[in-house]
């Protein structure tokens, strides 16, 4: 793994504009940044990222299976009690998942570490699946990248294939998001084009325009009944909204399915560590409530005491606290050697239960720290997108970086 300075494609900004990629610059800062790119070897991609992320997803499915059968865990994950059945039943019925993005810490050596899994509403899909692909094809054509280079990016084809697996031919699917947020909308549009390619009918409706019919079904902004709804809106919020009472009775099929409420929840990280202690791709993780006293020199909660003792030294060297619900780095605090070294200003989620996770130091490439986004479609890792940030906490103004495989 290295970061290589490369010439930018002449006129890429104009092309981004023409293609509708309107947020290539955000807040006066570049978001898409191709002044350099990350290079991986095929072995690194296939063994350290692809195989690891696919295995992690399988482990996550085992964790969901455990949590949905255990009310203690559903409570710890702060899933509202009245929706336990909705969540557990969707898992028991085997409702299929569409996509997710694992954020991994990786420096080219040793196993990638799972920082968190945005399994419900990941964005940056267009940049990863499409614009990054175009960058690669054009740079290869221009001779900037060798003919035998490649990119880990089968995302678009995997999504098309997944749609054909999980929906019937010609099925109508509604896509709901906030139309005023270009990043959210771009992600939804990317999924919807893939759905069209898969032979499905795709309709957009602004999330806030979804209505409830007299029969208790959900309807779009044109009052058409919604049979299948892809929502770029987190389950933890869906379950707390005014319409939450109608989720089950509406008969709507949701994508992602309700069981993703278990997975896209940082409380899954302590569960994974409990089920797979010492797994090379996991960082030690606990609920803060169980270990807060112990971190200050006292005793941990009895149930996790042996696991905590095994991880005590690692956590003392460095750990991160973060709320079980949060977006874009909100509420993340990093501690090293007994003192706080970084925190994000945004504490809008910090009233939720917190977890503690061992610190995975992000590598430094020319003053920037990359986080790998490993895309999961269905149950398999199928592509990669990187974001890097000057700060050790990746947030919403980080830069998207293209990558390629060489060697």
């Amino acid at each position: 793994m290295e970061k290589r300075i490369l010439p930018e494609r002449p006129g890429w900004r104009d092309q981004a504009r023409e293609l509708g990629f309107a947020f290539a610059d955000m807040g006066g800062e570049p978001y898409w940044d191709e002044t350099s790119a990350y290079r991986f070897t095929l072995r690194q991609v296939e063994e350290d990222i692809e195989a690891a992320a696919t295995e992690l997803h399988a482990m996550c499915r085992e964790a969901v299976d455990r949590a949905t059968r255990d009310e203690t865990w559903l409570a710890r994950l702060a899933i509202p009690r009245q929706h336990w059945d909705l969540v557990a039943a969707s898992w028991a019925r085997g409702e299929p998942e569409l996509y997710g993005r694992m954020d991994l810490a990786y420096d080219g050596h040793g196993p990638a570490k799972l920082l968190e899994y945005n399994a419900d509403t990941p964005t940056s899909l267009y940049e990863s699946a499409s614009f990054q692909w175009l960058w690669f094809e054009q740079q290869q054509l221009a001779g900037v990248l060798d003919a035998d280079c490649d990119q880990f990016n089968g995302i678009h084809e995997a999504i098309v294939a997944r749609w054909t697996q999980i929906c019937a031919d010609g099925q109508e699917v509604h896509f709901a998001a906030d139309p005023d947020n270009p990043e959210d909308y771009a992600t939804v549009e990317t999924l919807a084009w893939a759905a069209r390619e898969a032979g499905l009918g795709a309709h957009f409706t602004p999330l806030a325009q979804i209505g409830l019919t007299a029969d208790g079904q959900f309807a779009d902004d044109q009052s058409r009944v919604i049979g299948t709804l892809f929502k770029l809106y987190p389950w933890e919020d869906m379950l707390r909204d005014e319409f939450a009472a109608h989720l089950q009775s509406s008969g709507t099929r949701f994508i992602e399915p309700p069981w993703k409420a278990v997975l896209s929840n940082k409380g899954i990280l302590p569960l994974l560590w409990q089920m797979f202690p010492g797994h090379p791709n996991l960082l030690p993780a606990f609920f803060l409530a169980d270990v807060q006293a112990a971190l200050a020199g006292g005793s941990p909660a009895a149930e996790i005491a042996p696991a905590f003792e095994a991880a005590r030294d690692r956590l003392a060297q460095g750990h991160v606290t973060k709320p079980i619900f949060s977006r874009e780095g909100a509420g993340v605090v990093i501690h090293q050697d007994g003192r706080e070294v970084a925190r994000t200003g945004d504490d809008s989620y910090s009233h939720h239960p917190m977890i503690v996770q061992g610190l995975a130091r992000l590598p430094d490439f020319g003053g920037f720290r990359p986080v790998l986004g490993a895309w999961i479609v269905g149950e398999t890792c199928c592509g990669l997108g990187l974001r890097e940030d000057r700060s050790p906490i990746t947030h919403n103004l980080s830069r998207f970086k293209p990558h390629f495989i060489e060697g």
Partner: protein
Amino acid sequence: MTERHPRKRSRHVALVLAGTATLALAGCEDDRMDAQSFPDLESCIAASRQESLWFTEEDCRKNFAAARQEYLETAPRYESKELCEQEHGVGNCGGDPAQQQQAQGSGGGFSFMPLLVGYMMGSMLSRGGGIASQPMVNTADGRYSTPRGEQSFASNRGTGKVPAATFQRAPATLGKPPMSAAQVSQRGGFGAAATARPGTRSSFGG
């Protein structure tokens, strides 16, 4: 093929983001048809005499009568005037004309309906049909719509192209119990983003 390994990337992708402005995802755009709306029969007749259009004075009379009948059968009925005005605007509701004609006694309570404020005619000629019509009522925000309420229009007087679905008949309300507040269609029950502190959420994704 010079590749030594199976390729790790897609053979093609979807590159264009059309954006919300073009409503690309509404996509399977419904067929659109010529339509014209009138506040009353007289304005329709006047228009039919002035301009050479796709309808005659006879069409005006026939379709106005049909729209009036459809209004009686399908316009929404509410159990209170307040509820009706909430959905259709203050001053835009009245008693149920069908009940007044029948001199009560039909069992259900008295109901309120939005006033008939015009009608819309659409040309089905391009699809081998005649002329379709729908009554128009007010919306809560001062616009005009057909009883189905899917599309709203700024005025009850004008010409344009509208989706063919605009002329789909709404479900019957005549002879059914009027809607209570709980049955009135609701919108906006998603999106409160309850897990973030109010006003802090910038994106629903991440």
